[in-house]
């Protein structure tokens, strides 16, 4: 068990394609880090560089204080869970789990003990002598996890391990992965493009965009204090509403309405508002309702403010009028620079609500 350190890690493919640039990150021992971003953002490449499946072009990766740049994948003391499981089709579940240990000359009885332990933990006992093709998707996924667990590695690497499962099973497996990782206390790097999966699993999230780190932080910290418009638009469902607004005379102005004080420079500004931070009121910002998504536990109202698309989260209730007036608390406003997309300093102090829920 150990931490992982990235120092200015970069990956350049032939033709000067920079898949990953200058990633610096310190992963603490036992931490669950989720690398998240849209496809092509370099998250998988970064993970594969840790595994040794991709060469590291620049920078350094160390696991447990040991630089692994030049080490063979088998010598890096990591175990990986692949998206399509990558089980050995000709080996039984037991052999699949034992193979990595056999090659490391683990004593026979020790292998048997660890495989049995993992099988018990993952409820794979009845399937140990089956071939992977005789298992369901969820069972295969657990075998892939078992193969990683028995190795007792310094770190687990997960490469979108749940994306081949159906939605219901994904939720169940997500919980299982989190419980297992807590119980074993093994450092984990987890790659996903699903922000919901990222939010629910991570101790800390690393949001990547175009090979660069956009922001690193606890899920709620990113949710409440997105550092860029990219993070604001990526984290949360529905994503944060981003609107073109102006700062005039130290006030945020949208569609002729004064929304609150602002400290940023005068002129155009990108205004971010979470869907649940807008509340219907007697008077306020006018919103034209387009359509409503009923989720049962709540509803998402889609419409437009000042001609700009907006989503609004409301509790279920009565039918909505075609036009709403919205009240927004001044401290719920997020301001971003229009050109760089970077967050501008908050106008008002925010209530402390960034702590990880117990």
């Amino acid at each position: 068990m150990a931490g992982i350190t990235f120092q200015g890690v970069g990956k350049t493919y032939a033709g000067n394609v920079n898949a990953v640039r200058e990633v610096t990150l310190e992963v603490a021992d036992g931490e669950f880090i989720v690398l998240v971003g849209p496809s092509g953002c370099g998250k998988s490449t970064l993970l594969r560089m840790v595994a040794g499946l991709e060469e590291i072009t620049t920078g350094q990766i160390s696991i447990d204080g040991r630089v692994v740049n030049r080490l063979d994948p088998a010598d890096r003391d990591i175990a990986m869970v692949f998206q399509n499981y990558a089980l050995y089709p000709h080996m039984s579940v037991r052999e699949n789990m034992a193979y990595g240990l056999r090659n490391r000359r683990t004593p026979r009885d020790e292998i048997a003990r660890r495989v049995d332990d993992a099988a018990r933990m993952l409820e794979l006992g009845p399937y140990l002598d089956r071939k992977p093709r005789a298992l369901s998707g969820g069972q295969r996924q657990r075998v892939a996890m078992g193969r990683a667990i028995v190795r007792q590695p310094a770190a687990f690497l997960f490469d979108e391990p749940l994306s081949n499962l159906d939605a219901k099973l994904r939720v169940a497996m997500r919980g299982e992965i989190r419980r297992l990782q807590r119980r074993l206390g093994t450092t984990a790097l987890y790659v996903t493009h699903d922000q919901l999966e990222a939010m629910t699993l991570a101790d800390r999230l690393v949001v990547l965009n175009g090979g660069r780190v956009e922001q690193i932080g606890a899920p709620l910290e990113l949710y409440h204090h997105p550092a860029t418009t990219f993070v604001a638009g990526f984290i949360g469902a529905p994503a944060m509403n981003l609107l073109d607004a102006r700062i005039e005379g130290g006030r945020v102005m949208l569609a002729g309405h004064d929304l609150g004080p602002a400290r940023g420079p005068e002129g155009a500004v990108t205004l971010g508002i979470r869907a649940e931070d807008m509340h219907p009121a007697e008077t306020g910002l006018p919103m034209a309702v387009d359509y409503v998504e009923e989720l049962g536990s709540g509803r998402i109202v889609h419409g437009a403010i000042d001609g700009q698309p907006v989503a609004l989260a409301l509790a279920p209730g009565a039918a909505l009028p075609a036009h709403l007036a919205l009240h927004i608390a001044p401290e719920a406003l997020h301001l971003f620079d229009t050109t760089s997309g970077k967050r501008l300093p908050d106008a008002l102090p925010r209530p402390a609500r960034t702590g990880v829920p117990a």
Partner: protein
Amino acid sequence: MTDTAALPPGPAPQAVRRPRKPHPPAAPAKRVQFDRPLTPWLFVLPQLLVVAIFFYWPSVQAVNSSFYLEDPFGFGASFVGIDNYREALSSREYRTIAAFTAGFCALVTGLALGIGLLLAVKADKVIRGASAYKTALIAVYAIAPPVTGLIGMMFFDMHIGPFKDLAALFGHDLRVGIDYDDTALALVTVAVWKQIPYNFIFFLSGLQSVPVAVREAALLDARSGWRRFRDITLPLLAPTAFFLLVINITYSLFDTFAIIDVMVKDKPANNPMTLVYKVYLDGFKGNDIGGSSAQSVILMLVVAALTIVQFRLIERRVHYG
């Protein structure tokens, strides 16, 4: 209040139970129903005709004539029972040729498969100039067997052949067509050379069908490349290898005919040959239709036995994806 947006609608993770029931059996192959029972037979008729005319009919003919002693000029035949078989099996020459055929078959199959696999494994790793490399290796396959025989003969020629000079370097006087062992060496070499590209193509495509992720998983599990090859790649190649084994045995027994014909024909006697070539010699050169038929029936039985052994014993160990 903010957490609701991050959680999915629906049951909480703990409430969802994993499905316990075993994996359902694979769906049956697609079935087509015909209204009239004769329709399917109509579809397979052309294939059945081809098999009947070019395989069953000659086979029956061969079995039939193997019990007769036929006049060389085709004027008559007299029933001799199993004399033709007895004669063939008791002949010392026939046994020598059978022994050579077995050795030849084993050597050609083993070497062609082994070298083909080695080249495929190496070519699979080539990244730059891969297609040029592969084309060069596959090109030989486009050469017709008699031409292969001719080219081979030139290589091993007593006067102009470079292999004779090569052997001379090691102090060996290579006399293909005169010396039994030297001719055998030349036959094996040319037959293997001709078959390597075929095996190469199949092994290469077999290798490329091994999922990348499985190879990568193996990379994390085993440091030694040889172990990864032995434990992961080779078992996944087994279906390909089994298919090639059947094909290569058939090749070395039957399809080497043209090569042998070109290299042995018109040469002094006592040259190595396979049973198939002997059938041809006795039947068409020696006009001994009955004896030749008996030999081909024996050959047929041997091949049938071999095939049964292959499918019963070896295929059982093959894992089909």
